[in-house]
């Protein structure tokens, strides 16, 4: 179980406990959080599960795989240094307390 905070573009946030194993994308889906579309169901193809990891984050996130990096070239909201595909972020106890910001748009 890890606590994940999803911050919406309007400033509100949803904090949920996400069971392990899961991804940050699935954590949003199973908790009915709007703002993550995930059209390809988590196979790093669509770019509609884009999130910005909080700038102050110091938790250990996995390095970006080349195909994730490639997909982030075409997200609907601008890519930033903190951009990730939430379907490529596995939930583990180590990332308890992670904060991600949802972009204005996914497609």
């Amino acid at each position, binding site marked *: 179980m890890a606590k994940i905070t999803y911050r919406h573009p309007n400033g509100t946030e949803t904090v949920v406990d996400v069971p392990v194993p899961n991804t940050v994308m699935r954590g949003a*889906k199973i908790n009915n959080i709007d703002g993550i579309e995930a059209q390809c169901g988590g196979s*790093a193809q669509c770019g509609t599960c884009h999130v910005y990891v909080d700038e102050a984050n110091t938790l250990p996130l996995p390095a970006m795989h080349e195909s994730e990096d490639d997909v982030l070239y075409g997200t609907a909201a601008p890519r930033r240094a903190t951009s990730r595909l939430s379907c490529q972020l596995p939930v583990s106890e180590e990332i308890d307390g992670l904060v991600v910001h949802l972009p204005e748009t996914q497609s």
Partner: protein
Amino acid sequence: MAAPSVVVIGAGQAGSDTAAALRSQGFDGRITLVGAEGVPPYQRPPLSKQFLAGAGGGGDLALRPASFHAERDIEFVARDPAVRLDRDARRVALASGRTLGYRHLVLALGARPRRLAVPGGGLDGVLTLRTLTEAGRLRDAMRDTGRLLVVGGGFVGLEVAATARAAGLAVTVVESGPRLLARAVSGAMSAHLLAEHRAHGVRVLLSREVAALHGDGAGRVREAELAGGERIAADLVLVGIGAVPETALAAGAGLAVDDGVLVDRHLRTGDPAVYAIGDCARFPDPRTGRPLRLESVQNAADQARCVAAALCGAPRPYAALPWFWTEQFGLRLQIAGLGTGHDRVVTVGDPRTGRFSLLCYRGERLLATESVNRPADHMITRRLMGAGAPLPTPRQAAAPGFGFKEFRQTAAV
């Protein structure tokens, strides 16, 4: 009881997304989502891929968690197909006898697999794949049999062929056309996929038709007979020869139908209270004006949002850029745009490395990018095309060292 404000018929990708988008866009009237299947809305793409390969149960496929409908005050009606539409009275009748009044109706009925109309087409072991139930049946049958015949070299057929081959089955694909996926991809991509399947040991027969299926004495399929007489042993047959849009409900109510429920650029039928979206609808292609019916998650999801916006008082013509993906033997093919009518193809990257894109042009105009394991090319094409931004000319794309990443930077878009 007050009449429901919006009734959505069909609880698949398009219907579920419509209900969800209505709520997230602020719609506060009644929403009823009517499904024919016994389970809440789920994703179909994994049915021929991960699910069929044995990963995960059906529950992992759910589009939304079980609590979704209650939490958003959406009435979800399962296993009760709509059977009749009375537009004058604005009511739809369900199989159970229940009737629902509506102010707005959204038809999101999807499509059903086309049947194989040959002798023996109804034998045991002859399956189609559209629903979770059918996928479970196919998955179980694949465990018990060694020889699979796939009829049809389209996306569903080829994905099943690849999944089954990876699981160790002997697989034969029979395609009546001269190449695979003829309607969906360029000739060069067809050739690449053909080589890929053959390299993995799939027997692919092109320009050949199944004339009959023969069973054992007990009514179970054993053999396929091709036109010309060749016989192929098979204890399982997957028929993947395309899907027929579900139009009966609309046609029965006098709405115009032509291989899909006909809608305008706002996805509205001739009746302003009735919309049709997803696989069941034929809409004017925003780029050419020609009637178009697409079978993709992107199309279902984007049309759902478009209709929800209209019902929330912010109508805009449907203009989303089509895109699609498929996975076969770990090869990820992503298509952005529609290549229909292209007259030349520029290759970017080296197909022998398994990472390349085919750019389909009509004259100087890029119509579609077909990318194999090059997601950046796909994503950047989607963004540039969607924004109406300049795209690489054939000459630019053909230049040595061309890359979409660099192109996008220099184009500063």
